């Protein structure tokens, strides 16, 4: 939190600790609302209703709606891809505040962290993983083509 609000310097050890924290954090487990257009979507044993476990919701979105990951990708594989992405030695590490939430995130090259047979037809060059500092869990992970698409908020701090 101080990294964002007080703009103190983050040492390499600080950054390593943040990375390890993200890489070992659970995916959010608090059931989430499902947007109306996704209700009824099925993927394997997953059937999206009005609420869903976030990992199921995000996996179904990534595979069925967005086709960033290939059909057949399991929840464990998706989560492992995100964790591999966080631990990538060249991963960018950033912190920012958005909508009253403090966030740490990493950005890595997709091709280095998601095996070719797990990339979907809409796979994009970079992989973003978002971690909630307040909740201590991973909120989401998805691919994008360029930083300009993320519309990151002002006040973002790049730690690496």
């Amino acid at each position: 939190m101080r990294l964002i609000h007080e703009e103190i310097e983050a040492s390499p050890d600080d950054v390593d600790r943040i990375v390890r924290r993200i890489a070992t954090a659970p995916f959010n487990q608090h059931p989430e609302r499902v947007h109306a257009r996704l209700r009824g979507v099925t993927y394997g044993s997953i059937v999206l209703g009005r609420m869903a476990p976030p990992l199921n919701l995000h996996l179904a979105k990534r595979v069925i709606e967005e086709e960033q990951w290939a059909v057949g990708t399991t929840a464990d594989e998706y989560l492992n891809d995100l964790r591999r992405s966080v631990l990538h030695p060249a991963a960018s590490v950033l912190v920012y505040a958005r909508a009253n939430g403090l966030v740490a995130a990493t950005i890595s090259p997709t091709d280095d962290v998601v095996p070719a047979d797990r990339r979907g037809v809409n796979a994009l060059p970079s992989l973003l993983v978002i971690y909630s500092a307040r909740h201590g869990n991973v909120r989401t992970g998805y691919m994008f083509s360029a930083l300009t698409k993320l519309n990151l908020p002002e006040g973002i701090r790049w730690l690496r």
Partner: protein
Amino acid sequence: MAQVAPEHRPARLVDKDLKNLLGFWRTVPEFATEWPEWDEDSRLDFIHEWPIERETLQRGADMAAAGLLNERQQCEWLELTRLIEIHRDTVEQMLGEPI
């Protein structure tokens, strides 16, 4: 939105982008009605994931500007732009930032 020359994109994927975008924008009134019931976590995830919608929209805009949509896709794109015009303020209020 900045226009760039789009890469070749198979018709199926363009159709899918349009389906996803229309699936969202056609249901904005229903979504807005539900929004007050959405808990903070669910709202925050909607905000965190919005760049995916934005990038899909940008792809569609690039394809439309380059004249690469077929007749049916052009009709759907036109419907989409009208829906965005109607519902932009509502979505931006939910996001707390421009779409």
